[in-house]
């Protein structure tokens, strides 16, 4: 079955679902349709795409994309790549965990790295970064907060060894130290 045939097959059985071929994959135009499509593909007698291999996000600067790789364990010849596109500011995607448990950790990772909000995920927490971490490190506009900042310990060490440190570095170190501690719980509420 070619990609076009698959597209027609899905659209025949699921009226109202808009699909668009992108490269070798199908883009589900409305993210809310995703669980219906995946459920259909899983149960479908021909395709039987019952194995969700990979879930991941991509940041295209203007929008975020979630990419799903589906394979079949019964009918080994088929595979399908699905994708959904969401707004960067409000990246809500329905979770696939009720259909595929294998999505659990991968969706958590995508949330952790890109900030996707998977609605319906039973336990959407950060998985690789620590609790209370602010920001999504894999987004292209992510700035490492300390890439140009000296640590307080570094400054102390430098001063002890007779190196003069600019006033702004000391200030930044101070603000980082205190700001990080006081802001953390607040920002977690708004972000998480």
């Amino acid at each position, binding site marked *: 079955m070619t990609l076009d045939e698959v597209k027609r097959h899905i659209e025949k059985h699921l009226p109202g679902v808009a699909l668009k071929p992108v490269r070798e994959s199908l883009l589900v135009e409305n993210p809310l349709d995703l669980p219906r499509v995946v459920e259909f593909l899983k149960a479908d007698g021909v395709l039987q795409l019952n194995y*969700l291999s*990979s879930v*991941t996000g991509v940041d295209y600067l203007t929008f975020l994309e979630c*990419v799903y*790789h589906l394979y079949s*364990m019964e009918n080994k010849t088929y595979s399908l790549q699905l994708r959904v596109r969401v707004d960067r500011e409000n990246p809500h995607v329905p979770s696939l965990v009720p259909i595929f448990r294998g999505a659990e950790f991968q969706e958590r*990772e995508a949330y952790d790295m890109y900030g996707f909000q998977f609605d319906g995920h039973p336990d959407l927490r950060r998985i690789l970064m620590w609790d209370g971490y602010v920001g999504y490190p894999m987004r292209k506009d992510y700035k490492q907060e300390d890439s140009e900042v000296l640590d307080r310990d570094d400054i102390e060490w430098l001063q002890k060894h007779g190196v003069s440190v600019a006033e702004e570095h000391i200030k930044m170190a101070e603000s980082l130290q205190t700001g990080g501690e006081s802001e953390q719980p607040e920002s977690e509420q708004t972000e998480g």
Partner: protein
Amino acid sequence: MFEKMRVKTKVIDSGKSGLDTQTLEVNVGPQHPSTHGVFRMTIVLDGEVVKSLRPVMGYLHRNHEQIAENITYSASMPYTDRLDYFNSMSNNQAWAMTVEQLAEVEIPDRAEYIRVIMSELTRLVNHVSVIGFLLNDMGAFFTPTLFAFREREKVLDVFEAVSGSRMMCNYLRFGGVNRDLTDDQLGQIKKIVADFPAFLDEFETLLAQNEIVCMRCQNVGVLPAELAINASITGPMLRASGVNYDIRKVDQYSVYDRFEFKIPLGEKGDVYDRYYVRMLEMRESLKILNQALEQIEPGPFMAPKVPACLKNPRNFKPPVGEAYGRVEAPKGELGFYVVSDGSKEPWRYHVRAPSFINLTVLEAMCIGYKLADAIVILGSIDIVLGEVDR
């Protein structure tokens, strides 16, 4: 005074079984001898029985994916070694395959054979060590591990000879391999392959029918096939649950279609099946190795017709597009998803790590078993934290 006492009795009677039992929350890890690295399980115990288990990871997280997005394609190759640091060769293979798919590079036969030989040797190394570690988790005092490591060392010697490094091989290149195998090295591999069955027999006699091993492993940590499929479990763990899915057979990537080999399937999906399926997989790997060593012919080990983009690896710019390449790594499906924007660095680089996703079912397998079983079940999943945390 009596008021208080009555309240106290009431509390004691409130449990379901008539007894008020305390639960104990234990953090197994991140510093623990049996979590195979810095991995943590938050286990709630009732006596010794696991009531709930929450895997906590990320202690070894170095944002491998972001690092790769900021360096060239070929510079990622040594980083992939560090994913599953037991199996650098198959990690290399997955990454090389993905990029070759993206840039549409043809690989000469000899290079494919070398890759297959290397990744099957890797499988041997991984499976013997994991069985050794499993026994360690069960409480054997390092004897099986050291027996396994004796064989592992021989294979690592080969790796050292061909790539210069025992574990972080960085041997494969886009379009082929770094260096050709000499006849000496082929002979060395042939000797290992010829000696390995005897070792496997010995290992099996020592373990397979050992009463304590069987008591600890059989019917412990059962993973039903439906759950395994649903939770995207791959590799020996999936096959131990009786699901016939091996990417070497399904995708027939590389030159795997030229070899005669079978896929062993488990019966119940318990720890014992996961152990024994690995034993049988090693025997199948030996079959592949024997055939590959017979079929390998002299020839170029790098693609002769190099596409323009591959001429200078440092300036390697694949065409705009994306690719998802996957191989049957010893731990399961290792996939790389790469999106190229035509520049030197990948726009998106994602690793689908088998150890990471296989951990999904850890809690489901452990609940109701004892603490000691949870450790053994974790050992039977076969995780490497370099890959889980990336």
